């Protein structure tokens, strides 16, 4: 059977840079091929070249898209292919859907002919039903802010499928989604594959790819370094880089076992926690205009230990973090830090205590003043806001940079000039400046590639062993929580439905919600 898409020796260049080189693959009907690699490896550009959207200069021995020679197609001819024969599932449902238009119309925009309004509406409703949306007639009339996250994802997939394309490209379609939405998208992609269409999946996460792909091609620096049947690549990787990527997946890796190749092996000796817990929350509650975001949540974080809170988006994880950090006043309950009453309390009364409590956010860039260089941010943190000048704090600043393994040469760079991993390292360094007893980490690695995520998780492990800092680690990612936590709390609709030692919660879940969550956990080891 001939391939729907056949690429041989594809090279794509921008000005003087060649970002893709010598890439070859084939995509057959009813098959899923995954292109795996970190950001900048050229996987997205490769996928876009199949739609004539690479934006660079494309050269190839063969670039056959459904029988047409992609090297010779005019813009007009590409338009006939795009969205009709080859479609793309967009990544971010919140950004990709126009908030002011009904989703039904967003979906039928891609219909080619001038069909009647009734016909368009019927098609939108049919396709929404096909992707599992309940009550499609009503949903088609709603706008994206009225829909839940899961429904938006379904709408995006419907948008890609509306013209019955033969090939569907999913470019990081599951990145940054919580476990249940990821499972939903994967299930939809599987249905597409099983209906005889071909799926090209682009991802940086081997664990997710493992659940769907028939073949895997691992890309690095614009080249395919390894390709083969999925089972073989995952169980018996030939290339060093594939092994690095596989090792970076935290799922099922015991605590303090390094995920990155560069991390030296850590001593696993840890003192048993003793004395008062570093952080205690008692019966926390918070509601927003009638909606109970956090409902009687209690926990304690022993010294030098990690409590992981896992849950879907909207389960109340971030609100819990904000209550603990004193950014929001709880309706009920209290928080104490190192045995001292911390919240609810007047800000001026607890300011001195704040030195004991640090925070790391998902998007470190947003938490930095854009006018400060890396050095200025650290000097500001060390001097408690008195100065931005590094001069008086040079030794401490370089100490912090060393602790988080940041190149001292970056001291005069602005955060916007740093990479995602470097920014998170800088954020960790800043949080460590006052030598806090507790760090609250709210989705600290969710915006990072798996390989970068591995190095940051290793760093956090090492810091905990060296300094005895306690972590309150919040994430939607089950495998990250499993790897990082001593104790796990599963959060659902504002409540802790299950709490216990990590091995117990993951090995023998008691609550049915936990069990449901765990079915979405990718396992391939």
């Amino acid at each position, binding site marked *: 059977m001939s391939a729907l898409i056949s690429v041989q020796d594809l090279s794509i260049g921008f000005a003087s840079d060649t970002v893709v080189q010598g890439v070859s693959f084939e995509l057959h009907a009813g098959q899923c091929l995954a292109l795996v690699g970190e950001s900048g490896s050229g996987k997205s550009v490769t996928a876009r070249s199949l739609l004539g959207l690479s934006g660079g200069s494309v050269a190839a021995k063969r670039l056959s898209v459904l029988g047409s020679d992609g090297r010779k197609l005019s813009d007009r001819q590409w338009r006939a292919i795009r969205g009709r024969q080859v479609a793309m599932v967009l990544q971010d449902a919140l950004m990709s859907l126009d908030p002011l238009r009904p989703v039904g119309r967003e979906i039928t925009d891609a219909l080619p002919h001038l069909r009647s309004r009734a016909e368009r509406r019927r098609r939108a409703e049919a396709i929404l039903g096909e992707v599992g949306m309940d009550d499609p007639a009503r949903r088609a009339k709603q706008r994206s802010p009225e829909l839940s996250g899961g429904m938006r994802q379904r709408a995006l997939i419907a948008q890609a499928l509306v013209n019955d394309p033969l090939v569907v490209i999913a470019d990081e379609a599951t990145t940054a989604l919580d476990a249940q939405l990821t499972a939903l998208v994967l299930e939809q992609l599987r249905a597409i594959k099983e209906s005889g269409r071909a799926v090209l999946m682009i991802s940086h996460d081997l664990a997710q790819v493992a659940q769907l792909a028939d073949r895997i091609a691992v890309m690095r620096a614009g080249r395919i370094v390894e390709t083969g049947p999925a089972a073989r690549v995952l169980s018996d990787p030939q290339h060093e880089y594939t092994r690095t990527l596989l090792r970076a997946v935290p799922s099922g890796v015991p605590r303090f076992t390094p995920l990155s190749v560069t991390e030296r092996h850590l001593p696993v000796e840890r003192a048993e926690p003793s004395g008062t817990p570093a952080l205690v929350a008692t019966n926390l509650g918070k509601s927003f205009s009638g909606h109970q975001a956090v409902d009687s949540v209690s926990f304690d974080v022993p010294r030098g230990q990690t409590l992981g809170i896992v849950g879907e988006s909207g389960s109340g994880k971030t609100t819990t973090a904000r209550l603990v*950090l004193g950014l929001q006043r709880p309706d009920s309950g209290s928080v104490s830090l190192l045995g001292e009453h911390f919240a609810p309390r007047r800000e001026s009364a607890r300011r001195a205590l704040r030195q004991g409590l640090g925070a790391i956010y998902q998007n470190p860039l947003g*938490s930095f003043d854009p006018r400060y260089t890396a050095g200025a941010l650290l000097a500001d943190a060390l001097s408690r806001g008195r100065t931005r000048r590094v001069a008086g704090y040079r030794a401490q600043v370089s100490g912090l940079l060393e602790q988080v393994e940041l190149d001292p040469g970056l001291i005069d760079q602005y955060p916007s000039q740093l990479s995602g991993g470097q920014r998170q390292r800088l954020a960790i360094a800043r949080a460590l400046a006052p030598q806090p007893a507790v760090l609250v980490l709210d989705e600290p690695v969710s915006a990072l590639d798996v390989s970068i995520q591995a190095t940051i998780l290793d760093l956090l492990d090492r810091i905990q062993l060296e300094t005895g800092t306690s972590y309150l680690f919040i994430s939607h990612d089950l495998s990250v929580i499993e790897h990082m936590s001593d104790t796990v709390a599963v959060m659902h609709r504002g409540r802790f439905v299950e709490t216990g030692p990590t091995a117990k919660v993951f090995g023998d879940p008691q609550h049915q919600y936990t069990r449901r969550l765990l079915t979405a956990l990718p396992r391939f080891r």
Partner: protein
Amino acid sequence: MSRWARIGSTLFVLLLLLVALVPGWLAPGDPLAIDPAEAFQSPSPAHPMGTDESGRDVLTRVVHGARDSLVIGIAATALGMGVAIVLGTAAALSPRWLDAGILRLLEALYAIPSLLMALLIIAFTGPGVGPAIVAVGLSTAPGYARLVRSQIRTLRHSEMLQAATVLGRGTLLRVRNHLVPNALRPLLALITLGVGQAVIWASALSFLGLGTPPPAPEWGAMLAAGRTYLHLAWWMSLFPGLAIVVVAAGATMIGRALGGKVNAA
């Protein structure tokens, strides 16, 4: 913004500063020296911009007028911005009732055309350079204050400010180190545009006889004086008028360049 436009506006600023700081370098004569014999001379090599009704050299007066115009323009904008920062920040950070109160006050002031408000202020204080600065400055403040308020309100809930709170920074430090500087950054372009606008207004006040008193060389006042003799000596009005246009256009260009830079960052 092209490289040439950037170089052009930089040169323009330098030239303007030079003219304002050492007017004698470009026009060595005395701007007030009367020579009735030389009155109403059309432009010639001896008087490149001609002379006025009292025989004063128009070029010398235009050059010497730059300082007053610039001082009024910059000082008035600085005053307006200063008032705006205080009012806007206070409104944005106050409890809701006070915010609403300040906002209604600003809206009431905003409803009065700025030039009319400037005239009102002059009516109380009497004409002069100082009153002109106060009048132009205060009449631009309500507009700026509303912008500052909305900037601060957006920033107040940003992660950057939360991070500062978590690091244990007090309100004063947060406002001084993060809120105000970051709120003003995007307004920089607008402030520069405002200087051009203030120069025009200052000239307008002088034109109406409410700014710098004669015989001091001031562009608006010169324009007004030349108006009487427009049929006889067009150069008396044209050159001061051009000076106003050039300064306003220059400030606009620089403002746009800054705006592009801030947006790109």
